[in-house]
């Protein structure tokens, strides 16, 4: 099957090139497989003030039926944000990105906004429990990891 991706991603790209919500900027979208976006947290949350974070979107053939793979990327001036649901290797534990929480109506833009608000609402300067071990041992793709959403308050 050719996949629904091309047309849909094309439309999304047109839209976000012209118009993105504040704090979100498109870095690159050279092909229909991997896009990079920068996000900032806009309020004065001391955990994230003045920082910019880079997100990598990987689209499979089944996008948007299947969720994209979204992770933070670490660069010299782009750290991995501190958050109890974000591992230090950039993997994000967010139900929206798993098969249960994903809806094909979601988009790159809506995912960015969700992550932005997930950061905005956070007050804990910590990594998920077992971060070190997970980062050392994990070879799975993010979507294959059975995250246990043990805490819905953050």
């Amino acid at each position, binding site marked *: 099957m050719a996949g*629904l991706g091309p047309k*849909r991603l094309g439309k999304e790209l047109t839209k976000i090139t012209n118009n993105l919500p504040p704090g979100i900027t498109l870095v690159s979208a050279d092909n229909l497989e991997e896009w990079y976006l920068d996000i900032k947290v806009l309020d004065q949350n001391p955990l994230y003030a003045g920082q910019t974070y880079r997100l990598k979107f990987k689209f499979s053939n089944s996008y948007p*039926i299947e969720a994209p793979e979204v992770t933070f990327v670490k660069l010299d001036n782009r750290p991995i944000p501190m958050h109890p649901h974000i591992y230090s290797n950039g993997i994000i534990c967010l139900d929206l990105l798993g098969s249960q929480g994903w809806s094909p109506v979601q988009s790159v833009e809506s995912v960015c906004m969700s992550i932005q608000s997930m950061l905005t609402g956070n007050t804990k300067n910590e990594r998920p429990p077992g971060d070190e071990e997970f980062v050392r041992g994990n070879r799975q793709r993010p979507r294959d990891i059975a995250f246990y959403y043990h805490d819905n308050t953050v």
Partner: protein
Amino acid sequence: MSNFDVFDDQPDDDPNAISYKTDKTKGVTFDVSYKVYDPDDIRRQQDEMIDEVNMILAMSKEDAAIILRHFRWNKERLIDGYMDDSPKVLEAAGLGPSVTESPKLESISGFMCDICCEDEDGLLTFAMKCGHRYCVDCYRQYLNQKIREEGEAARIQCPSDGCHRIIDSRSLDLLVTADLRSRYRELLNRTFVEDKDTLKWCPAPDCANAVECGIKKKDLDKVVPTVACNCGYRFCFGCILSDHQPAPCELVKRWLKKCADDSETANWISANTKECPKCNSTIEKNGGCNHMTCRKCKHEFCWMCMGLWSEHGTSWYNCNRFEEKSGTDARDAQAKSRVSLERYLHYYNRYANHEQSARLDKDIYQKTEKKMVQLQTASGMSWIEVQYLNTASQALQTCRQTLKWTYAFAFYLARNNLTEIFEDNQKDLEMAVEALSEMFEKPIAELADAKLKVDIMDKTAYCNKRRVILLDDTADNLATGRWSFNVDLKSAAGRR
């Protein structure tokens, strides 16, 4: 999340609940009542309940199925809940308010699909009653992804974000191909059995049957609910392991864990090591003198008498001391741990022996079939006339299985005045089984002897009878709580 999502799901009046039968005419104590269903029965059961709800609540069959699944097929609770607050129940089940009538495929001018952004004229679209409309291609791919990749069936929601409308089978039929549809039905059947605590799949390979039994988890310290599927496989309804009567599930769990930890290692340790009298570390003496210094606690002792080395004075390398106080104590402690190990090994060896024999069951059975053919030619007996060998073989297998577990049972059994009866029963069965086993393995020439045939038939009947007596006795005492165990059975009953 609504409070309709979790139920403890035990029907209050349970027609299949086990009665601890004391009435011998009705059957034996260790039997539980159960029913075996084949895939057609399972489908029929669902259909019947769907029809019923369809009539009582006047809703379509598709909706009735969805709401029944939501209530995990507990019809009484469904009807109660529905009568109480039908909008709330419908919403929670994924049957929220309808926006459009009877869903069908249609093309709508000026429509753009929110999933693929396709907007050409004549695009076929579909929406469930929630009104969230997408093009047919996207809907199909979405369903394919859910059913094929994620193995989801009973709770496939509308693709729209935040819409909890559940896809019904009629909509599904409109959208997907036949093979996906049959996969969907298969998954639904699976959830039907898995949703009901009174139903379990037969664990035998390639068996598609399910067994219904009313035994509840909290009763598993009182009864060992062995069921036999029509495929011939006998298993425990409580823990799905193969038949482990007379030992209750909790003991079986502990025993298997213990065996996985110990056994082989324990054998070697018992033969080659002693424990430090102070910290009980296991020590292997691989040469050298009798003056031992424990690596772990630095305790110095004599390997021969296990007493304090300091009390040996200057009589090195030669333990000539007798009955030093510290030595006796240490030997006592060691003897105790050795006794406990020996006790375990006593039961383990017997358990393992029967397990070994049970593992050869398949072999024996195949040999039996061959024997039966040979015997027919050797003796001129008919097929029917040699069936006694098959019966004997089956009796051997079942009895060995039971015997095996009597040893695990006995390991945890605390001695009281009933244990002697149990041990006598165990001994009788064991002797009978070994005797039958011996006859059974005789060469064909001897088997052709009519007297041996009668002997085997008698012994087979005797074995089966001894097994029933043993199981009857153990089950009876278990149900009435007259056994005492050296572990707590209750601790784990109720959870799995």
